[in-house]
């Protein structure tokens, strides 16, 4: 489904360049739940943005199904995001002027769906994420956890088969974070590929595979995990 091959990303930094990612390989298959861990500045968000096609790598390949995302045009990558790849951002990034169901339906509307059909699909996605009761509320009326659930619903609405979640639990309490990760795990169980970045080793324990980054380079991979509470190894990896 998703394959990153020796992906490197460099940003201009004053007179020089800073390497955010250095030849990283990651693969997420259908129904796989892969967690990317690392301290702040390790390149997790950059990896997630490149995986979702939001940004292009400086070098390397990014494949989603048979499409070379790294070399695809911006418009093509945008179509990919609204049809195949859902993205969950740290703080949800919901439109404050749209209700929850309108937010979830927005990618489908951007894809040319009728409003009614998109709304029905959005309600279904909200139901899948157990927030169907919040459909008519606006982001300002939701708690952090509820916002993230709505954001997850927006990421899975339609026929997306891959969800890229960038620190989806960064701004919520422990219980909510756990619930959100469980939601992502359940999506993976339904056949959706999930790539999640996090700095919380306990949450990474839900993943089938954990990729550890430090200073932009992959230092360790482990997995697949077998269930909850298997985070000791990641802590040992100097996180």
């Amino acid at each position, binding site marked *: 489904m998703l394959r990153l091959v020796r992906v490197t990303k460099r940003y201009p930094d004053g007179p020089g360049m800073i390497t955010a990612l250095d030849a990283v390989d990651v693969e997420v298959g259908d129904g796989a739940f892969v967690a990317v861990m690392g301290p702040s500045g390790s390149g997790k968000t950059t990896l997630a943005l490149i995986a979702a096609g939001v940004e292009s790598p400086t070098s390397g390949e990014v494949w989603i199904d048979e499409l070379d995302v790294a070399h695809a045009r911006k418009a093509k990558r*945008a179509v990919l995001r609204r049809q195949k790849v859902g*993205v969950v951002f740290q703080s949800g*990034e919901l439109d404050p002027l749209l209700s929850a169901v309108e937010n979830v339906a927005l990618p489908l509307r*951007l894809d040319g769906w009728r409003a009614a059909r998109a709304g029905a699909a959005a309600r279904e996605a909200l139901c899948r994420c157990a927030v169907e009761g919040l459909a008519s509320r606006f982001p300002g009326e939701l708690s952090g956890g509820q916002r993230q659930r709505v954001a997850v619903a927006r990421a899975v609405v339609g026929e997306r088969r891959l969800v890229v979640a960038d620190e989806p639990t960064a701004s919520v309490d422990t219980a909510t974070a756990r619930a959100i990760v469980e939601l992502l795990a359940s999506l993976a169980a339904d056949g959706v590929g999930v790539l999640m970045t996090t700095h919380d080793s306990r949450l990474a324990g839900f993943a089938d595979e954990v990729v550890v980054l430090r200073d932009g380079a992959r230092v360790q991979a482990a997995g697949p995990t077998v269930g909850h509470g298997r985070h000791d190894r990641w802590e040992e990896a100097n996180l």
Partner: protein
Amino acid sequence: MSAFAAAAREGTRLVRSSPTRSAIVAVTIAGATALGVCEASAAVGCVALSIAVTVVARRSPRPERVMSANAWSRAGAGRFAIWMSGAVEALIVAWVAVLAGGLVGLVVLYASATHAAFNEGVTVVLWQLGLLAIVACLPTTRFRASKRTRTRRVMSAAGVGARVAIVVCALLLMLSLASGIRTDFDLSLAGALIVLLLVIVGLIVTGPASNWAVDTLGNVPIFRSIVAIAARHRTPATVRFVIVAAVSLATVFAVLGASVQARPDTQHLLDERLARLPVLPPNIALMRLNPEAEATSFSFSFPAFAPGLTGSELNGIRVAIARAAPGAEVIELHSLGERITTKVGTSRYPVTSTFPGCNPCDVGPYIIADARLRDVYGGPARYTAPSSTYQLLSPDVVGPDLSTIGVTRVPTEDAILQTFRHGGPLPSLSFADAVYYEVPAKSAVGLPTTISGMFVRSPKPLTDAQLARLEAVAREFRENSLPQLTLIGPRGSLVPLGAQVAQVAISASLRQAPWAATSAAARWAWAGVAALIALVTLLVTLTIDTIDRRRDVERLERIGATPHQVRSAAAIQTALQLAVVSWLSALLVVGLVKVGIDAFNHAEPTIPVPFTMPWAVVLLLTFGLPAAGAALAALVARPAWLESRSNENPAALS
């Protein structure tokens, strides 16, 4: 640190936090101020543009200000402090820009213009400072997602009802005002009110109409995705206000101008032709006493009663005339009073009065009928006197209404005009200022009469020598005892020499009216200025909007919107809304001008004003403006620098 100091500091920080935005606002205001200072005729437009830009900048929910407001709110700041920081920010940008632009403009004026122009420039700067300070005090915008509660739905329905009522009342009032315009005076009052009402109606109607148009377009499959973006944000009322006002004014001037230009200038041409005609037959002269003085009241004046000649004066004049023109007959005029006339002159032709109830205020004096006058005028008395405004100035005597029985031997102005319009021959003599309305002696029983003048009728044409002698007689009596005595010869006034009292007053051509663009160039200039103001306001608004919505665009693109969709949404939204605004404005204006012109023609059928549409100008405003706006919006909607900000924290608005 006091709350004021903290707010001032935060306002300054907000200015610095978005330098591009602040610079765009400031440069626009400074440019408008400099132009308004240098060119007085553009001052109103420049001030309007500055206000529009400041309102947009102040009310647009830019991320930095929203974050600032939220942070202050969490820190315990009251609404006043939050408002003040925003007000300080707007005030700094606006005032610095006005002072900078004003300084540039005043330096240019100082070097090249007069002291008065310099003072006018200073006035523009002061107005700018004052008005923009008021605008800066507008409330700070904060995001408020509207939950659709029952109360809100009821309030919304009530609001719609109130708007419909306002629009209906305004339309009725505008129709009534447009139907009643007859003079420049009417136009100056009613026209201004109509434009104000037009803008209010346009502002109320175009908001929902634009939204409806955008939503309706969303039903077309190929536009669905674009409308999904466009429908989330609406064009600010400020922008609609500017466009409605600009398009309405330009359309009014263009349609009125084209209609006036298409009107045959018959009245003016006729006046010019009549002015070239001889006044009296070659064997006739008119010697008479003119009114002593004019009593002025408001903007028009009343001639005092013409004094009559005493018996000795009359005899003296008779003897002198007999010597000057031997064999000539003297036909005394037994006057029944004097006429009321406008300040413009003593013409028997209608003149446009600045007094609404007195147009025309022009009828001739009344005399006792005299059969000998047939030889003077060459025909019977058969033309009735105008009845609209005549008042006999006899304060102590109540007599018959002379206007219903007075008749003259000179064709009335209406009769001449109708003949002229249909290509008929003009009379050979104008009888300018020599028209008398004759009343049978039996109808004037009891009314005082005076002999205030006399026709001198020679059996043969008066020679130059005879006219010179008559002139000498009139001058002698003027100098000795009758300073009001005048003499009109066949070719016009002889005494006083060179006076224009006997000339035809040439009515001003409507084509010189200041309120209408009566040339194609003027119409294009108006349309161009309107389009320019609308587009500049739009450009500044779109630019500010794009800066303020960059995170929104980032968010959209992250969830799958393409740059093309973002541009298309901005273009289609702008085009649709400009089209709705300009079409509605043009439709309302054209309808009102049509109603006004029809009502005018019905009331003043002499020379009708045709309703003419300057199609090219109207098409420019209704199609060219939306097209240009769309192109501009697409250009500005997603600038390249948006790309470079993609690594910023996008969480600001969530």
